[in-house]
């Protein structure tokens, strides 16, 4: 290792191919993948699920499991080939020279060991460091990852920390051995956006401080722009484009990269005037990849006889900094041509009042004692929710986990009954009526689309049967044949082939399952649809298609859509009005333009700043919230946001700590729940500015 020259790449992957061997066949997961990471450089790997980006990371760790095997190429770490190393040599490198951070922090920590012990283990094993010294180092690193009260954390068990704190500990553990290369596999996907922003800042800062090289894997282009210097776009097992982040973002030279950018909602996209352009078709299954270019069948620039004739090599883009693309036609394509604009639609005016909630409260009583005794605590999941929703309207409900948005959905659907307040649905008060007591008509008018596509359909029932069941329950159709025909029409409506009726859910992709979920929700002609993060678990290219489908159906049926989400980009794209929730309170409510422009509620401001945006023109003011969301079991007195608010010092006296702020109604019916005066609010500056071209 002494002969390694620091000016040489730290990691060099050359023509790497990886296959998984199942009973039936060999499944190639990664083909002909090359990339180079220089010292101190952050390399981003971006792509949709199943594109092989995590497989590359696992191959670098040589941790492919029993079925995975490297079938060709080399992975050189500091000039030494990892693919030929023995287990013994690998053990020295793993954890000390290369460290990996996984997606799920709780799964990476040993729940039965104190944090201090787990951290100290790393230098004790790799450097034979004495225990006391190792613990001292652990304490210092915990302070480095900016966790408060390091001594308490050292003695804590993982479950005593929040998700964000756990992920910081995992990062601390990776840094204990001062690795030369850090692999981060979707390190923030399981975290809330405001927590994610903190972690991303930390990773960048530590990378600079320790000079660690990083391989950063993510599906989120905005995050890659924030963190990385260079990136590599992967599609179906191949790297399709690699280069400097800014060059790839602004001057992409591969059709897939272009299509990807056109399918994500960037500022400026609008559901009516400039809709997203979904990538047609589906991601190919690993054993059904086409000949030639893998992206060929979905590509606008596809030319028969050229693109599908032979394997396509990476081609260097001239005049660019180490920029390469796997496209044969990149010199012929006019990259500045504007995208074909999809169908432009008129915004439908909001119709009659459909749903009205007034002062809705939902409290849960939880007992803390093991035997039902002990002091009963109250979780205030929803506090005085008041809002209205009209026909044709999309109302977005935004907030991080624990803000009460799911509880609100449950109460509205009738799965729980409200503690107090009223819910008027079409002039009918439903707040005390559990779902069993509602009549079929009410139930079929108010339906829900669920978040997790892998969970939304019953795995042991055919797709057609599940839709027909919904029709039966809603008393639609008079005979089996009639319902069968209605089911097929519903499949047409969500643009799925009719043959899917006979399929089992496991034979469908995530996006297709979500479409079935939408068909099922609209089976009874739903008028109000609660969509609980319907696209957050889908890949970006599929998100656009499913979102557009929802919009189309909404336009046709004049549906009121309650869109629950934490993703502000998509909310800005499709909603008419936005409601921001924090710890059970509505902190801001207004039209999309009002909420996304100043004056903001301080929480909205931080939320907007935290969302990564994949656009190099966007300039953001960085506002990182300290700490975590307080527990709903033990909310802070006064304003719910006061523990993390950066404006608190501008409010005189102890007002924020003691008094719940009143709702201020600003111009245009924009509501903000804050103690800041109207003048102070008016002085706020926009978080996001788009630099002129």
């Amino acid at each position, binding site marked *: 290792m002494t002969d390694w020259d620091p000016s040489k790449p730290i990691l060099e992957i050359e023509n790497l191919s990886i296959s998984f061997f199942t009973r039936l066949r060999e499944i190639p997961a990664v083909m002909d993948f090359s990339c180079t990471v220089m010292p101190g450089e952050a390399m981003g790997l971006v792509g949709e699920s199943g594109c092989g980006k995590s497989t590359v990371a696992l191959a670098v760790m040589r941790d492919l499991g029993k079925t995975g095997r490297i079938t060709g190429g080399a992975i050189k770490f500091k000039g030494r080939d990892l693919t030929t190393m023995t287990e013994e040599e690998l053990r020295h490198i793993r954890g000390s020279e290369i460290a990996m951070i996984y997606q799920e922090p709780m799964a990476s920590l040993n729940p039965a060991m104190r944090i201090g012990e787990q951290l100290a283990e790393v230098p004790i094993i790799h450097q034979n460091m004495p225990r006391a010294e190792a613990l001292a180092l652990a304490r210092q690193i915990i302070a480095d990852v900016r966790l408060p009260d390091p001594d308490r954390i050292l003695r804590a068990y993982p479950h005593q920390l929040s998700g964000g704190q756990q992920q910081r500990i995992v990062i601390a553990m990776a840094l204990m051995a001062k690795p030369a290369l850090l692999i981060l596999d979707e390190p923030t996907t399981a975290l809330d956006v405001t927590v994610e922003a903190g972690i991303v800042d930390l990773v960048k800062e530590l990378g600079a401080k320790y000079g660690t090289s990083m391989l950063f894997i993510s599906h989120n282009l905005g995050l890659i722009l924030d963190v990385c210097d260079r990136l590599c776009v992967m599609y179906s097992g191949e790297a399709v484009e690699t280069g400097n982040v800014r060059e790839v973002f602004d001057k992409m030279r591969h059709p897939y990269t272009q299509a990807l950018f056109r399918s994500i909602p960037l500022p400026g996209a609008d559901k009516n005037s400039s809709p997203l352009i979904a990538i047609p078709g589906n991601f190919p299954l690993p054993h059904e990849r086409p000949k030639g270019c893998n992206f060929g069948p979905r590509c606008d620039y596809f030319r028969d006889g050229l693109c599908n004739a032979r394997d396509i090599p990476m081609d260097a883009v001239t005049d660019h900094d180490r920029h390469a693309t796997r496209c044969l036609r990149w010199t012929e394509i006019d990259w500045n041509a504007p995208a074909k604009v999809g169908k432009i639609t008129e915004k439908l005016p909001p119709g009659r009042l459909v749903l009205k909630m007034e002062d809705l409260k939902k409290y849960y009583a939880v007992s803390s004692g093991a035997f039902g005794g002990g002091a009963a605590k109250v979780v205030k999941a929803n506090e005085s929710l008041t809002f209205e929703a009209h026909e044709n309207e999309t109302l977005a409900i935004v907030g991080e986990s624990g803000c009460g948005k799911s509880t609100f959905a449950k109460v509205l659907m009738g*799965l729980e009954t409200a503690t107090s307040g009223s819910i008027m649905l079409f002039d009918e008060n439903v707040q005390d009526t559990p779902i*069993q007591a*509602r009549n079929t008509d009410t*139930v079929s008018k108010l339906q*829900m689309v*669920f978040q997790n596509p892998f*969970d939304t359909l019953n*795995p*042991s029932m055919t797709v057609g049967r599940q839709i027909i069941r*919904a029709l039966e329950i809603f008393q639609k159709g008079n005979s089996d044949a009639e319902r069968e025909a209605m089911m097929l029409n519903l499949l047409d409506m969500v643009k799925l082939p009719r043959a899917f009726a006979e399929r089992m859910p496991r034979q469908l992709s995530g996006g297709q399952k979500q479409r079935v979920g939408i068909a099922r929700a609209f089976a009874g002609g739903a008028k109000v649809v609660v969509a609980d993060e319907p696209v957050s678990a889908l890949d970006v290219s599929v998100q656009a298609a499913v979102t557009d489908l929802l919009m189309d159906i909404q336009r046709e049926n004049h549906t009121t859509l309650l869109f629950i989400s934490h993703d502000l980009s998509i909310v800005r794209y499709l909603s008419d009005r936005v409601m921001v929730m924090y710890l059970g309170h509505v902190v801001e409510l207004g039209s999309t333009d009002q909420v996304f422009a100043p004056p903001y509620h301080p929480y909205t401001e931080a939320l907007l700043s935290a969302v990564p945006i994949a656009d190099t023109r966007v300039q953001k003011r960085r506002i990182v919230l300290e700490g975590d969301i307080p527990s709903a079991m033990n909310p802070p007195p006064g304003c719910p946001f006061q523990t993390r608010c950066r404006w608190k010092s501008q409010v005189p006296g102890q007002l924020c700590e003691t008094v719940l702020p009143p709702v201020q109604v600003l111009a245009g019916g924009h509501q903000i729940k804050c103690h800041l005066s109207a003048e102070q609010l008016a002085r706020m500056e926009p978080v996001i500015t788009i630099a002129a071209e």
Partner: protein
Amino acid sequence: MEPLSWPMIFAKMVVQFWPVWAALIVTVALSLHFRRRLGLYGKLFDSTVGLLGFVIVMFWVFTALFADLIITFDPIAQISQMKNVSPGTPVPGSDQWYLLGGDHLARDVFSRVVMGARRVLTIAPAATVIAFMVGITLGLPAGYFGGKLDTGLSFIANLVLAFPVILLFYLLVTPEIRQTGVPVVLAAVLFLFPVIFVSVLLNSRYFTNPARRNLYVGAALAVGLWAYSGLAFNADPTGIWSMDPNLLNVFVSVVFVNAPTVFRIVRGIVMDLKSRDYVAAGQTRGEGPWYIMLWEILPNARGPLIVDFCLRIGYTTILLGTLGFFGLGVSPESPDWGSTIDDGRKLLSIYPHPAVVPALALMSLVLGLNLLADGLREESMRD
């Protein structure tokens, strides 16, 4: 005729089992050919352990089916000279042998073991099915609703599980207890569950179409209650459904001790599955709780339940063997393996074969069921 040597005995037995071999070959060949279309059952053939278990279990199943073709003598006929004869002894006045010798009542051990398979393979799976229906019918609501219902049912289940099984059996089959009518009451309660299970299952699915619901549920209730009256109270006027009082005792006791374990497994799975989105989807479209439990949750719990079902048949088989060994329940003439082992026990040191042969049979069946369960578990975990 000369006594047969051991190789000759084996050769004769192999020939005698010909219907079993034929059926096994057909089953395995067909299954292997279509295995990609057969779901979990097809995947079983990818696992050596599972395949071995399947073949052993099917061997005994086919033995039970074709027992009439395989046996060489009437299993309860006694031929006076043949008392305790060693394996391979020719039977005077015929061209046959006692392939595995004779027992202390001069009956053919081979034929008794073959016929015993029929007894064992009827009672054990039937008792397990009833136990599953009881466990599922109670476990579903306990897991789904939780709360006081769960606390109550779980407490009762734990109470039954905490009681020593053998003592419970002795109590249930002692004449004094039997005179109090406890076994009949138990049977009345336990046999009601399958009827409830099937009726609720059909009702929850078809209630949207009353005409069809009435037909299906009516038919299920008619058949169910008819069988119920015969099995539990011996009151079936046609006499098709009836159960020997001794057998009823054994049956009820086996169901009684098995149901609580099934209950706990089902309850655990339901508590996990009830938080899935498809359950919430069912709730938000206004499905009743029983539809959600029986049609949305139960089919998705089938993996662990099938595995446990196989293991539990094995366990029940041993339990029946134990009961037979203690002389509980079944008639003395019965060729079932447990009582046969008990009969052979008294002369074990002099004539081991009457006890060893059924013991080996019992062991191989239970081994096969365990291997089958292992194979199923392993394959259901894979992709």
